[in-house]
Each structure stands twice: as structure tokens, then as C-alpha cells.
């Protein structure tokens, strides 16, 4: 028998869900609203919510002071590039660990995860020096490499769990049917793994897009992505809340739009295998 849920409970839980949803969304909404305020209204107390003098002057100032498109292009190239390279390395790696595991596979997986346990600041100085000596500071290539390496363990882990979900029998059936490894990949495994691949790709893109530690420390202008663009508005000259908000809104807009359109794929990928 299905559990009976009273309409009152539905109302309460729906209300609670909306409340918490709103709570999580609030910072983004607030940033968005603040970006349309004047600097004076931005830190007015009590804060104004919707009824303030709407202005787009912050956006004009931000664009005038720093080149949004230059940073956006850097972000796209760094996030896209590091994701692409990470996927190219991670797919075969996760593949072999999921379908041809050895005694050491578990250890390797744990070792990879362990690299994420160290705070990045712990290796900042050596990495900085290595980058300086190899001329990688403030280059897109340098940022692509570091972000790719940083996200690789997570990408491999995610893909590994997705591949694990694919029943071995199906691959064996394909082998019995005469599929070579290449054809097994093209006709059987890839189509089955697409939801997992897509959500891993999206998540990695978001992580790389928002990554601030390495991008702030290893780039200044030429290769600086949007994170540096945002940070430049909390400067020694003082905090410019409204302009900072405008910069943030501009910086997160592409990724929010991307996430919005791919949310089905993301949710499906993240809950893949939870329900058979």
C-alpha cells in the first residue's frame, strides 16, 4: 500500500522546500540585484530589496575599466581546455580500472583521491617556482595544466563509478557477437556511458570555471580568467560592492546559463545508477 500523505504535510514540505531552495539561491539573487544598485544603495542599511533606483552604470564602468571579453575568453579556454584534456586522460584510465582491474586498482584510486586531501596552498610555493622557471606564469597553457591535474582525480572517480555501473555481461555479449574492442567502444559502451560522460564533463567545466586559488595566484593579466576579473574589484582602493556584484554576475552568467540548459543531464548523471 502506498503511504498516505495528508495535504497539510504536502503543503508544509513544499513550503519548506521552496524556503530552502530560496535560501540557497539568495546569494546569487542578491549579487544580481546589487549589481543594479548605486554604490551608495549597495551597502545601505536597512538594505533595499526591489524598490531602488535601477541602474546599469556598474556594468558600463566594469566594462570600461577592465576588458570582460578578454577574461571571459580566457575562462572559456582554460575551463574548456582543462576539461577536454582531463576527459581524454580520464576516460581510458577509468575504463581500464573499471573493466580490467588489477590488485592495485583500489590503491591507485585512493592515492588519486588522497591528492585532493592536501590543501593546494601547501604546494603553492614549489608550483609557483616551477612555473616561474618554465615561463608558465600568467599563461593559459600553465593554467590549463594545473586545473586539469587538479580535477583529474575527481573526473576519473566519477567516470570510474559510471563505468562500473555498466553490466559486464553486456560487454561480454558484445564480445560473443564479434565486436572488437574498438567497435565495442563505439557501438555499446559509449552510447551507454553518455549520461555519465556528459555529467562529468559539465561538472568538471563548472569546477574549472569557478576555480579561484590557482588562477588568482598564477595569473595576473594575459591569461587571467573571470575569477581574477572579479577579484580585481576588491582592491586596496576599497570595496566596490555594486561593481563587484556586476563583475560577479557577468562572470557566473555563462556557467549558470549552461547549467540551466543542461540541468536534466546533470541531475540524471549525478543520480545515475541510484535507481535501477
Amino acid at each position, binding site marked *: 500500500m502506498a503511504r498516505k500523505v495528508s495535504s497539510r504535510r504536502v503543503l508544509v514540505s513544499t513550503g519548506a522546500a521552496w524556503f530552502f531552495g530560496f535560501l540557497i539561491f539568495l546569494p546569487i539573487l542578491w549579487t544580481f540585484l546589487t549589481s543594479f544598485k548605486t554604490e551608495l544603495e549597495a551597502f545601505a542599511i536597512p538594505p533595499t530589496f526591489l524598490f531602488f533606483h535601477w541602474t546599469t552604470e556598474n556594468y558600463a564602468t566594469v566594462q570600461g575599466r577592465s576588458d570582460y571579453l578578454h577574461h571571459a575568453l580566457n575562462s572559456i579556454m582554460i575551463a574548456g581546455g582543462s576539461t577536454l584534456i582531463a576527459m581524454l586522460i580520464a576516460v581510458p584510465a577509468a575504463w581500464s580500472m573499471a573493466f580490467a582491474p588489477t590488485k592495485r586498482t583500489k590503491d591507485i584510486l585512493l592515492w588519486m583521491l588522497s591528492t585532493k586531501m592536501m590543501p593546494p596552498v601547501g604546494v603553492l610555493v614549489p608550483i609557483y617556482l616551477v612555473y616561474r622557471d618554465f615561463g608558465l606564469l600568467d599563461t593559459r597553457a600553465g593554467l590549463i595544466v594545473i586545473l586539469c591535474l587538479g580535477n583529474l582525480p575527481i573526473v576519473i572517480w566519477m567516470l570510474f563509478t559510471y563505468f562500473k555501473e555498466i553490466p559486464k555481461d*553486456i560487454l*561480454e*555479449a558484445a*564480445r*560473443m*557477437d*564479434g565486436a572488437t574492442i574498438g567497435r565495442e567502444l563505439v557501438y*555499446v559502451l559509449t552510447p*551507454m556511458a553518455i549520461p555519465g560522460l556528459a555529467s562529468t564533463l559539465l561538472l568538471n567545466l563548472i569546477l574549472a570555471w569557478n576555480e579561484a586559488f590557482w588562477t588568482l595566484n598564477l595569473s595576473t593579466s594575459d591569461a587571467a580568467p573571470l575569477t581574477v576579473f572579479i577579484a580585481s574589484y576588491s582592491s586596496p582602493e576599497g570595496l566596490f560592492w555594486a561593481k563587484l556584484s556586476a563583475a560577479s554576475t557577468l562572470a557566473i552568467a555563462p556557467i549558470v546559463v549552461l547549467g540551466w540548459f543542461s540541468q536534466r543531464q546533470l541531475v540524471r548523471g549525478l543520480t545515475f545508477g541510484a535507481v535501477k
Partner: protein
Amino acid sequence: MGQITLQRVRKSFGPVNIIQDANLEIEDGAFVVFVGPSGCGKTTLLRLIAGLEDVTGGQILIDGHNVVDVPPAKRGLSMVFQSYALYPHMSVRGNIAFGLKMAGLPRPEIDRKVEAAAATLNLTPYLDRKPRDLSGGQRQRVAIGRAIVREPKAFLFDEPLSNLDAALRVQMRLEVTKLQKQLGTTAVYVTHDQVEAMTMADKIVVLNAGHIEQYGSPLELYERPANLFVAGFIGSPKMNFVSGEAAGERGVATIGVRPEHLKIGKDGEGWPGTVSVAEHLGSDTFLYVDAGKLGMLTARCIGEFSLKAGDRVWLSPDPARVHRFNTEGGVIGG
């Protein structure tokens, strides 16, 4: 042709020997069932024949050619998996056609063969559906369709019916047997269900702990089991084993009597005992009798038998149907 010969086939995973020295001759067109308790190596043996596992030693001959170094697809066998293992993203048509597509057959020929296989298995109306839109029985049929369409030398079945409900299992059992006879293709079938083994097989291979205990027709195994293990494994309810004095009288270590070969009397002769449980199935009655020093004995009587728990009975074995075993468990006489 589909003659499969195993010569001293061994398989071990690390230090664990799964299959030890298996020798077997499967004739062309035969329906051979591997049966045994779980972990006995029956599925491993099937996978060795399929080529999904590599042998540790020995030879597997298909039509006289040693195939141990031949990849699975080149052995000319097709396999039906326990989980069906259908390609979830392909339609029924795509699933059945996949093997032919991989073999590089021309499109019209693939279509013709797929249609024919679908017609044989009553799958024609479902050809454009995805596996997730099919019932268990239909999925099973698709898996079989995928196997027959390639016109293999032999079918390998790995417990194909164990995911179906009881009624469907009986129906599919008949269909698989009929199909195999109609096609005349050799079939190797793995199951842990001895009823499936008895009803479907031309010949049964009884496996235990990686050993082939006996190879013979169902009735041979039933009437002349080679040892205690086979005697106990084949037949339901299980054969009664009695050792001690009653066996000593016949000069052996253990005697075995099938439940259907125990005569039940309400007075006098045979082994005395008390009915502890009586199961009335209508067509049969199973009596579980506490026979004191002899232990629990099972007796099977045809039809309704008006005995109930607590009744005193005497059991006498049919002398012609008593199996005698030595201390090593081997059969004596035969």
C-alpha cells in the same frame, strides 16, 4: 556441425582450482546440461568453452580444432546470459542484428535473418521496441533471438531462465527445448535446477567442486548414480541415505533409497518410524518419517495417503532399487 570436446581442461584463479581435469565429449546436436550446486564451476566451464575465460591447461576442441587461443567471436558459438545482457540503447531489431552487423553481412541479408528469427520467437510486433519496454519473458526471447540469428555451431546458455517466474520458466523450458530440437544445434546449458536438467537434457554433466562427477542421460543418472553426490543431487525429494547396521546387513558402508522406492506399511515389516510431517500435494504425498537410529527418511506415495503427523509407519525399501555405496562414496555393483 557442433561437436565440442574437452581434454584435461583446468582452470585456476590464483591458487584456487576451479576446474580440475575436465574431460567431456559433447556430440553434435546434443542438448547437454551442466548441473551442480553453486560454486561447483559449471558457469566457469561454460565460459571456458565460450572463450570468455582462458584455460589454465588442457584443450577445448570444437569440431576437432583446438580453440583455446581463438577469441570468443571466432569460435562460432553464441551465448544467452542469465541477465539477458541486451544492449539497452538498441531496439530489439538492433539487438538481434548486432552480431550479423559485426560480421559484416549485407543489409538485406541481415534484415531477412532478423525477421526470420523474430518470427520464430513471436517477436515480430516488438522489433522496434527497446528492451526496457519488454517483459522478462520477451527479453529472454530477444536474448535467444540474438543467439539463433548467427546460426552458431552451438548455443551456450548460462542459467537463462532463473530470472523468470515459475510459470514462465516452465513454458520457456519447453520452448527452448523445442527450438533446439527444431534447429538441431548443439546446446550447452548451465543450471542449478535439477528439474530443468532432467527435463531438458539429452545428457547431463553433474559437477561438484570443479570435478565432473558423472556424465550421462537423465535416466542413467537417476537409475545408476555413480556416487553419493550424484545420487543425492539428482532426484527430488532427495534420496535417503542410511549407514550403520542397516547398510552393514547388505555388506556396504551406505545404502541409498529414493523416496519413491520406499513402501509404506501400517504394520509389521521394514524400518519402523513415526511420521513427523506429511505434505499432501494431491497427486503425491511426501512423508517425513523419524526412523529413530536411521535418522529422518523421506517417502513419496502416489495419490492421497491418509497419514498424519504422529502416526506409526513401517518403511520397506524396494530391494531392486537399493543403491549401495562404499566408504569412499562410490557406487558398488550398479
